[in-house]
């Protein structure tokens, strides 16, 4: 009986870890897609998800960390700037994913606190954390460069990266602030048109 319970727990854990993506699912994703990286992340509510589950709609991704004093609040402002620049109908198709560079300190509670403080809309926004090794791989896939500083802060480039619905990098912007770069906005609108066809 005990053994059977243990077995069931094991099966449950195995399912939780492997999620819904099979090797065949991964192979069906284009080779130039960031979604070929099979990473498990967890969101501001502690719910786990696979990066590849974001496939199907364009996604705006950036990396940040919650204790950051300088650029990170601006990164959220910049993403909000893109959200506001879109008209009423478009945002439903664009989702926003901000991934922490600092998984050691950015636990679910820290993400949740920023999520609430910045009044983000859970239908479109996700603040996420993942393992340190995954952070390095994701940063490499997104072209974000970063370095941990001696005082616990991070030095990092601050790109907003636009992925098309297949997860391909189609545009990025280093411009920060509430007014988005017009070229980048054009790419966002273009991606949304494609996805609504």
């Amino acid at each position, binding site marked *: 009986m005990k053994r059977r319970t243990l077995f069931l727990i094991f099966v449950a854990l195995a399912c939780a870890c492997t999620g819904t993506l099979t090797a065949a699912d991964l192979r069906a994703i284009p080779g130039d897609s960031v979604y070929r990286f099979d990473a498990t992340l967890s969101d501001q509510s502690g719910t786990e998800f696979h990066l590849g589950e974001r496939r199907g709609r364009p996604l705006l991704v950036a990396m940040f960390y919650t204790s950051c004093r300088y650029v990170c609040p601006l990164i959220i402002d910049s993403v909000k700037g893109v959200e506001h620049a879109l008209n009423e109908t478009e945002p439903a198709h664009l989702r926003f994913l901000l991934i922490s560079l600092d998984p050691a300190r950015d636990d679910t509670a820290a993400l949740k606190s920023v999520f609430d403080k910045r009044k983000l809309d859970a239908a479109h926004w996700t603040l996420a954390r993942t393992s340190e090794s995954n952070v390095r791989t994701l940063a490499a896939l997104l072209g974000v460069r970063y370095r941990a*500083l001696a005082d616990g*802060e991070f030095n990092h480039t601050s790109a907003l990266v636009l992925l098309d619905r297949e997860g391909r990098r189609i545009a990025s912007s280093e411009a920060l602030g509430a007014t988005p770069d017009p070229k980048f906005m054009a790419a966002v609108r273009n991606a949304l048109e494609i996805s609504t066809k």
Partner: protein
Amino acid sequence: MRLAALLMTVLLPSAAAGDFVRLPGQAAFTSILKYTDSDGKVPIAPFELMTTPVTNAQFLAFVVTHPEWRRGTAPSVFAEARYLSHWGGPLSLGAAAEAAQPVTHVSWFAARAYCEANNARLPTWSEWEYAAAADATRADARKDPAWRDRILGWYAKPANVPLARVGQGSPDLHGVHDLHGLVWEWVDDYAAMLVSADNRNQADPDVLTFCGAGALATDDRENYAVLMRIAMLSALEAHNTTGSLGFRCARGASGDVQ
């Protein structure tokens, strides 16, 4: 060739993974990178490093057992089209790639996967820089003009000559070969060297492009050999490959991954 590679992985697991040697580390190693937050002093914990760069034969053994990393199979997001392009085929070295030559045309993702599969990791930049500071008798020979001249002599050599086999010549003090003079090498945190970030469009580049302090400078401009490595690594993206860029793995002092 495929059978040979399979036999090699079965019969010679340690050779396939590469030989590691222990390096003692240093409490405050003086890096050529003078970040304002750390003043260029980096603690290097004891660690193990492969005595030679990973060879074509070793990497072939890896792709035999890891089909997802074969040329033509590895997604382009992890390895650009030039990935292993000097090999005869996905599972054969061919005439242009010798077994004992260092493997090149490998992306950072592929190098990382190789090390992971061998219970190891890529060295950090600091570990690599610390290891590469040694000569045959000293752990840090960088101030010696002879050390610098020897390395710069390599840069003066034409790049169209075939790569030598790994492990030729005498090892350094730690028993490590080929840190200079053969290939450039990937490091795990190559993307942490924020020297190429273009921040010309920002009003206040120091604050806006980077989160916090930590700008990069160097006070050792004479050390071209290492500065050239930094310039090259900072210009690359993780899926890039070149004909002169290989890697070796590192692991913790007790043989664990960390």
